[in-house]
Structures are given as C-alpha cells and as structure tokens.
C-alpha cells in the first residue's frame, strides 16, 4: 500500500548514513559543510544535463540589442535526471489505538450527547445522530451489533478520501515537508517519528529547526535527529530568521541529494497575525528552491472546537495539505476531525499515539471509526 518514490542508491550507501548522524550543521556554514558531505555520486553515470548555455550565445550574436541574456531558470540548472525507485515503507496502523465511545450498549437516544463528549461539536453531533436514527429505521437496524456497524459505516464514509497518503510519490526530489500548528501540539515529536520511519526505509532525511523562538526547541529536534540518524540544520543563533533556516535546510537537502527535507516551525496561536504571516515567508523561502510537498497541520486531539479555528487560519496562510492529529493515546477522541473534514475538506494523514519513536500511524478512516464504535 505504501509505495513511495525515492532516489535510487547502491549498497554503498549504508556507511554514508552512519556518518551523516554526526552531521549537525550550523546554518551559516551550511554550504561548505554540505560540499564536504560524503555523497555517493550515483547519477554520474547518467546522461549529463542538457546544457542550456549552448543556446544562449547564438541568440546574443544574432540580436545583440533586443534580448537581454537570461539566466536559465533555477529548475533547469538543477540536474534533472534522478533515478528513482519505488520503495515500500514499513506500514503503520492505528490498530486498537482509539478508545471506544460506547460501553456495553449503543443507545441511539444518547448518541448526540456521546458525540458531543467526543468533541464532534454540536452541529456535527446533531447531524450524525439524526442520520443514524433515519438509517436505522430505514434498514430496520435494532440490535446493538447492527447499530454499531451502521454507525461505523457512516463515520467511515465521512472521512474517506483518496488522497490521505503522504505525498512521497511524485518523484520531484527533494520532497519538502513543513510542520505547522499551535504551541504544544506536538510538531517536533511528530517530525522526529516521521524522520525515523523514513530512515528505516533507507531514505535520506534532512531536518530543519526553524523553531528559533521557544527555548531549546532546536535541541529538542536535534535529539530526535540523533534518534533518526539524520542531519539537522540549526539556526545560526537563537531568534534567527526561521525562513533562512528553512531555505538552508532545502539547500542542504539538494546539495547532499537527500530525499526529503522536513522543517519544524515554531508553535503559533492562529490569531497572532504577525506570526502567521511569518509562515508565508517560510513558504516563499522554501519555494525558491523546491516545491513544497506537504504542509502538515499538527492538531492536539485534546483540543476542542478551537481546532476548527486553528485549521481555518493555518489553511488560509500556509496552504495546509494534511492534518496530523496527535495525543490520541489519551482519553480524547478527536471527534473534531469530522467537522474539519466537512468544513475544510482536508485529508487526515497521520495520527500520533505516544511519545516513543514508533508511536504514530497512518490514518485510516475505517480503523478510526471501528475503534470509536468498538465493543469494549
């Protein structure tokens, strides 16, 4: 199921990875270090890049006044042909990670309250409760098992969509992921887990610590980088421009031919306009060199209806491509996902279920719904 495209590398790669672990680069010196970085020149055997330079001189000769010599666009300069391979990454599933909403019996009359308690929100809860009642009487579902199945299908259907897998498939390397969200949602932890997972699948990962604000946030990511055996770009100093760090992270990913750059950003409350604007700047800095594959909005499952306000605001400024819901290992049910899906039409991509490095899963609407209606 999880087949993704990454750069083709030989067996020789393994020692390189080990070396990369130690490589913590201070942002300002990135370029030099990046050049030194041991890279296996896999693509040297390939066709050299078509030289755009050859064309330009002729143009200049024939019409010296009319056309100013144009720099070839960045995209053309980059060595385009990269050999790719499709790899399977270890599958992660939610399993029995979600707590059920119900005790022994499903009581349709109490459904609305139960859904409200699970943070579905009043409107969604009313809607689903009414829908279940209607369907139940239509299908003649009365037994507990029938009702559970009915609700499960209903819930699954509401979240099901095609694009819920991570965008690691278009082959436009390096992939760039951006993690955004409010303070304390779990961005850094999510990135750490994601990096380790990719690393396990032999991916080359570069992490960018663009949370230059919170005390020791960079160190926190650095610890995860160590665990994920991946290099990290640090800001030159505390409070440095996060956009610069993002830029350098992508630059390093390109120079070291990494497969993916994952950038951590500072937590920001969605009503802080200046901080939200900063996200736009980070985006633009990244886009100077590469396409952004995913902007993951990290939402804490314990948050209630405010998650909607978060999602709206972040979608507006940062073009969120998917949602990560963290802390689902607690008692919070994350019912707000249904309202989010309806209102903003954003796929839910990952869920976090603990503090350990493997504690995350890919979101499956069916597994999630199954968990919610399961009989304890």
């Amino acid at each position, binding site marked *: 199921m999880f087949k993704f495209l990454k750069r083709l590398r030989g067996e020789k790669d393994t020692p390189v990875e080990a070396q990369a672990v130690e490589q913590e680069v201070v942002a300002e010196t990135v370029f030099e270090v990046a050049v030194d970085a041991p890279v296996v020149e896999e693509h040297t055997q390939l066709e050299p890049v078509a030289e755009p330079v050859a064309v330009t001189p002729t143009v200049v000769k024939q019409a010296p006044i009319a056309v100013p010599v144009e720099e070839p666009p960045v995209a053309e300069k980059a060595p385009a042909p990269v050999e790719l391979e499709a790899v399977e990454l270890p599958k992660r599933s939610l399993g029995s990670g979600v707590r059920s909403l119900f005790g022994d019996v499903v009581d349709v009359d109490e459904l609305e309250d139960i859904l409200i308690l699970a943070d579905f929100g009043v409107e969604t809860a009313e809607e689903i409760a009414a829908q279940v009642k209607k369907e139940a009487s239509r299908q003649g579902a009365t037994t507990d098992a029938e009702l559970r199945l009915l609700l499960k299908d209903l819930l699954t259907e509401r979240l099901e969509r095609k694009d819920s897998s991570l965008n690691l498939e278009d082959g436009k390397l390096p992939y760039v992921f951006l993690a955004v969200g409010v303070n304390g949602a779990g961005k850094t932890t999510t990135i750490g887990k994601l990096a380790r997972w990719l690393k396990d699948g032999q991916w080359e990962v570069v992490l960018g610590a663009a949370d230059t604000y919170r005390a*020791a946030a960079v160190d926190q990511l650095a610890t995860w980088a160590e665990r994920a055996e991946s290099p990290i770009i640090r800001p030159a100093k505390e409070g440095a421009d996060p956009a610069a760090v993002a830029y350098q992270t992508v630059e390093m990913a390109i120079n070291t031919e990494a497969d993916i750059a994952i950038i951590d950003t500072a937590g920001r409350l969605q009503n*802080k306009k200046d901080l939200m604007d900063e996200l736009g700047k980070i985006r633009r800095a990244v886009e100077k060199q590469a396409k952004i594959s995913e902007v993951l909005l990290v939402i804490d499952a314990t948050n*209630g209806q405010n998650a909607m306000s978060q999602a709206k605001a972040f979608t507006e400024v940062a073009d969120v491509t998917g949602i990560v819901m963290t802390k689902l290992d607690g*008692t919070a049910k994350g019912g707000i996902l249904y309202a989010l899906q309806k209102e903003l039409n954003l796929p839910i991509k990952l869920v976090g279920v603990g503090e350990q490095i493997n504690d995350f899963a890919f979101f499956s609407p069916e597994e999630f719904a199954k968990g919610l209606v399961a009989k304890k």
Partner: protein
Amino acid sequence: MFGNLSDRLSDTFKNLRGKGRLSASDIDATLRDIRRALLEADVALEVVKDFIGAIRERALGDEVSKALNPAQQVVQIVNEELTQILGGESKQLRFAKSPPTVIMLAGLQGSGKTTLAGKLAKWLKEQNQTPLLVAADLQRPNAVTQLEVLGERTGVTVFAPEPGNGTGNPVEVAKQAIAHAKKAQFSVVIVDTAGRLGVDEEMMQQAIGIRDAVGPDEILFVVDSMLGQDAVNVAKAFKDGVGVTGVVLTKLDGDSRGGAALSVANVTGAPILFSSTGEGLDAFETFHPERMAGRILDMGDVVSLIEQAQKTFDEEESKKLADKIASDSFTLQDFLEQMQQLRKMGNMKSILGMMPGAGKMKKQLEDFDESEIARTEAIIFSMTPVERNMPKVLNGSRRQRIARGSGTTVTEVNQLIIRFEQAAKVMKTMAKGGMPNIPGTNPVQMGGAVGGGYIGGKKKDNKKKGSKSGNPAKRAAENKGLGYSAATETKPGNAFGLEK
C-alpha cells in the same frame, strides 16, 4: 460565525433585552442558545447540564418574574453562576509557614508547564522570593535544556542534576532538589514535571512519587485553555491521581473560547490561580474569576486594564496631561509622549483587547500593526520643537522635509496630523466629561489617544457619557457603536444595564 462565547451570549441576550415579561418558553429558548454557546465554547457537557439546570431553576423562580426587567435578571443570573463556577473571588498562592514553599507543576504534554515554570519563577523573583527551578521532566527531549535557558533568561537558579532525554529518575531529582533548596536557602521550589496523560498509570505513579518526595504546598494543574470535552476526564484523572490544589490556564491569548476553564474549575473544585497569556516571560497574571465571567459576558476586563495602566503610568504625568487637554494645549509632543507611555504599558493589542466591547473589533485589533507606532514616532521625531508644539505651522514644504527625514511619505505625515487633530478633539470632549464619539474613528486608528483618553476620562464625572445627539435615532445608533445599548444610557460601563 460567532467570535467567542461573549459574542454569542450577547447576541442571545439581545433578544431578551427588550422584553418586559418572560414566558417559560422565552427562557427555554434562551437556555437552548446558552447551552449551544457553552458547548461550542468547549465547556464540558456535564458542566453545561448542571449550569443550565441551575439557571433554569432560578430563572423560572420568583426572582425573575417579579423583577422589573426579567431579561436583565436572567443575564445577571448567568453572570453570577459563571462567576461561581469559576471560583468566586480570586485566590492567592499558598506559601509554606517555613520555607521552602514547594510548588509542583503537573499536566498533559504540551500544556505549557515548562514555559509556565519560567514565568512563575520570574514573577516570584519580582516579589522578592528566591525561587529554585527543578528540572524533573526527564522525558521530553531537551526539556531540561529548555528550563535551563529559561533560568538563564530570568536569572533564576535551575537545579538539573540529570540531563534528561529518557535517562535519570525524576523522583530522585525532586528529592535532592528539596535538600538542596533547604541547604542553599531558596524560599520557593518550582518542580517542573514531564507531561503525562491521565490514563498513563505508570506516569501517574511517577507523579505521585515526585509528590511524595517533595511534599508540595501547591500542586498546580497546568491546563491548555483550548482543551475540549476531554478536559473533564483529564481533570478527574489528575485530581484522583496526583491531586490538584490549584489550576493555571495557559494560552489564553489565543482565540479559544476558554470553556475548559469552566470544566476544570467545576471538576477539580480547585481555584484557578493564574492565567498565562503569551510567550513572553511577562505574559502571566493572577486569575480573576469575576473578571473572567465578565469577559465571557463581554463586559470587558476593565479592572485588569486599570491595574496594568497603574503599573506604568506616572500619576503626575497623567494629571499634567489631563490639565493640558482641558486647557486645549495638547501638542504633538504630548501625543508622542502619550504613545511612548502606552507602549511601556505593553503590547497595544492586549491593552485594547481588555476594553469593554472590544470583542467586536477583535478582527481590527489583530490587524493592527504595532510598527505603525514606530512610524508615527519617526515622523514626530523629524519635526522641530516649534512644529511639535504648534502643528499649525506645518506647511507643505515643512511636511515634505519631515517625510524625507522620517523615511515616510507626505501622505503619511498628513494622515498623522489628521489623526492628531481628531485625537485632540476627542480628548477635549472627554476631558469635559463626554464620550469620544466621532463617526469614522475607532480606538485603533486613534493610536495614542486611547490611553490618554481613558485616563483623562476616568478623572471626570461620568454623568454625560453617551452620544449627545438630539436625534434619538442617531443617538441610539451612535451609542450602539460604543457597545452600549440605548437603554443603558443612564448607567454606562455596564453592557447590560444591570443594577449592581
């Protein structure tokens, strides 16, 4: 969409306001609205049920039917009940009879414990205590480093014998910390612990271990104000697990509706002691239940504002200013000083946000550009003393020079002068006891005028607040713009015209 609980409730009450008598169905309809508003504000369902029940009982009772204005009476009941759930009067931190006082922080991951530890330490230090920060979060990567950085910024000693990141025993660290604090005579010990889920029995056991090792005078439960329905479960788990003696609400500077405050206060029965309102180490204040309830009901947080103002405003200077305004000699120089004073008071947005009725202009507040003040400053700095004192002399060529000198444009200079003239006019009106009410202006655009206006206004009698227009329709419209209903003319400062 409603911005928040206050907006929602004030909308609900608008329907009630005009009524002379309330029928049972009026009350039920209102209560349904209130129920929904509270649920959308993330107040836990069981708390909402209790709350609605209590209000219904009182609203249907004699007290309302006999009241002159039943609608207002309902509002009053809602306000009282809100305040009561939030804990009545504000509570103080308990200090031990013999130091050190031990404060233990506990809460979910990401609720803001470590940041709060830094703020609390700074606050205590300002109160002439000698706090010691203890790094007992050995779980989260570099939580220890984070605390050390905070200690450095606040100049508070950090006790961190273990590097953390999964190694070391937090119970042991806590034990050593107390011994160390006693020996080195620290007056308060703040123990930062790892974030933990209520259902994580192992981690909860560890928290109990830490508690037993340090014997805390306060166990502060740190709660993210964005918490949803789960707040009840979490609060129960912590109350039954490690125990809770006080609550701290964090991230209140966000746009969350803050219903978690109600849920947690209700479930734990512990007072909310502090609220945390930003990432800066100063963004921390004592929690005032009655003000929070008022805020929820959109009455503004005027008392907080006054306190904050008193911190920075020089009494004498404000008197001088008030005289100046009254005698019509308010100059650009004063305008500048005003603005600088206002800046000292803290972030403009947070100040404006505390004004009554500010809920309605939240959007504008968010868009307000702090650098606008810097530009205004630059323009005034580029003027000669004569120009600052007599704005009338500012002709075209002077304006051009000023624009060049301040790196702005003539248009911006012109705008500033227009704003200044408006501000001067507003202040004069206010100094005479009127309300600033120039159509087309709002406090945000007035910039520096807000602080001065309100200080000046406070000194005068309030008899004539409200629009003075002779046209009743216009008067009503203008008063509405101020966030007061026409009916409240006689009693300004109270959004619902309730007799206290």
